[in-house]
């Protein structure tokens, strides 16, 4: 059976950063991703990122991805692409499919950095061609350079909805409106301001009544909601759109962690059921770590920091970092993580993350 020291599932920002930290110390690292290209979400992010200097703020997401790839290459990390992991079994053995064949990989440490998947939304007509995840539209325009439609309705005002709206216009589409069921815009005001300036109306307390069309989306009816989130009769409006993009949240991709037997806790601000982990990103199963959106949906900057933590900690546990060096590195990472989790947008996540860590201590 193929063996390695640290197996990392998912080559997004979390998995790549983890690989870099662990390989730097000398550990033998194998990175697996089901896609044909590594990078996870990063390669569709063509906007300049937020954050601080350490997080390469002001740099476009895909350039950060290129940088991380270069580092993993230089460090000799083994990257298995088109390799979908479907099981974690005893003795830290992974089962994965590559090129249509089953393979097994035995590791001493496993890091699950599988990211998150987009939520769907149910309404009459929601299965018509032309209704798609905002991330799907983003992949099509920024990675494959194809417009999925010309006239768009965006549903959801979090940063994903705001940013993808902006990017659809950069790709040449027209965004007819962005609607949000809550009474307030969820994402950053600066992202909202960009699309407002470009002429996109944002309607809060508004949702979809139905999508129109028989073979594909040909229009959409929206209506307003009252304080109790009930539709207000008479507020229906029909918009001329051919595409409806859903940006209604992400859920951590936790199947593998469930399957492995990690314990979970329920924390809605992090996207629902999330694996419990300690300050080293180690789950309730010794030697199995988690990092990035799978531990609670946040951002690429925090995913990279969590990846680094898991990288340092897993390499330390194999003896590649001495205790002092590891402690210093981990302290630095925690400082940066905590500073990312401040302010009105970060505080909720900060508290949620503390709850997640406390859940670990209570079990101990």
């Amino acid at each position: 059976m193929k063996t390695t020291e640290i197996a990392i599932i998912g080559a997004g920002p979390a998995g790549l950063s983890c690989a870099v930290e662990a390989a730097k110390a000398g550990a033998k690292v194998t990175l697996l991703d089901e896609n044909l290209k590594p990078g996870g979400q990063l390669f569709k992010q063509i906007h300049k990122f937020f954050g601080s200097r350490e997080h390469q703020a002001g740099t476009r997401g895909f350039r950060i991805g290129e940088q991380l790839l270069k580092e993993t290459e230089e460090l000799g990390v083994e990257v298995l692409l088109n390799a979908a992991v479907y099981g974690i079994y005893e003795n830290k053995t992974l089962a994965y499919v590559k090129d249509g064949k089953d393979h097994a990989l035995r590791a001493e440490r496993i890091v699950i950095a599988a990211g998150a998947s987009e939520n769907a939304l149910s309404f009459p007509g929601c299965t018509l061609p032309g209704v798609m995840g905002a991330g799907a539209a983003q992949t099509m325009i920024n990675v494959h350079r194809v417009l999925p439609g010309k006239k768009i309705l965006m549903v959801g005002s979090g940063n994903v909805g705001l940013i993808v709206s902006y990017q659809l216009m950069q790709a040449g589409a027209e965004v007819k409106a962005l609607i949000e069921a809550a009474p307030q815009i969820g994402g950053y005001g600066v992202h909202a301001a960009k699309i407002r300036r470009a002429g996109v109306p944002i309607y809060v307390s508004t949702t979809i009544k139905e999508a129109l069309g028989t073979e594909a989306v040909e229009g959409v009816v929206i209506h307003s909601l009252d304080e109790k989130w009930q539709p207000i009769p008479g507020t229906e409006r029909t918009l001329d759109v051919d595409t409806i993009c859903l940006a209604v949240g992400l859920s951590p991709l936790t199947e593998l962690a469930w399957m492995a037997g990690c314990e979970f806790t329920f924390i809605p601000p992090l996207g629902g059921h999330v694996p419990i982990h300690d300050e080293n990103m180690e789950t309730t199963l010794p030697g199995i770590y988690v990092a990035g959106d799978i531990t609670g949906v946040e951002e690429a900057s925090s995913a990279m920091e969590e990846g680094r933590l898991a990288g340092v900690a897993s390499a330390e546990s194999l003896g590649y970092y001495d205790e002092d060096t590891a402690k210093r590195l981990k302290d630095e990472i925690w400082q940066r993580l905590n500073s990312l989790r401040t302010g009105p947008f970060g505080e909720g996540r900060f508290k949620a993350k503390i709850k997640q860590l406390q859940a670990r201590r209570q079990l101990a």
Partner: protein
Amino acid sequence: MRIKHHPILNDETRECNATIIVDGKKVPAIEGEPIAAALLAAGIRKFRETPKYHKPRGIFCAIGRCTDCVMIVDGIPNVRTCVTPVRNGMVIKTQKGLGEWGEKS
């Protein structure tokens, strides 16, 4: 519709260098791009019909998770077109229901 010009990604440098046959019609494509991208570029949005109620479906996730985009590719049903790369001469058919093996032509 293909994005020829882009303020951040600059002008498209690739050109269509392949042809795929979709329900009998020739569709230009770029070798290696996902089949779904070539179809959307040609304005094709309906990829299959559901087994029971024959409802049309198109892409939803574009990253190989939801299976909404499956079609019959070179006679093999249930191929996720959003993650399957184009090869010149591929024969693709709208999948009706669960699809049948060997529905080539």
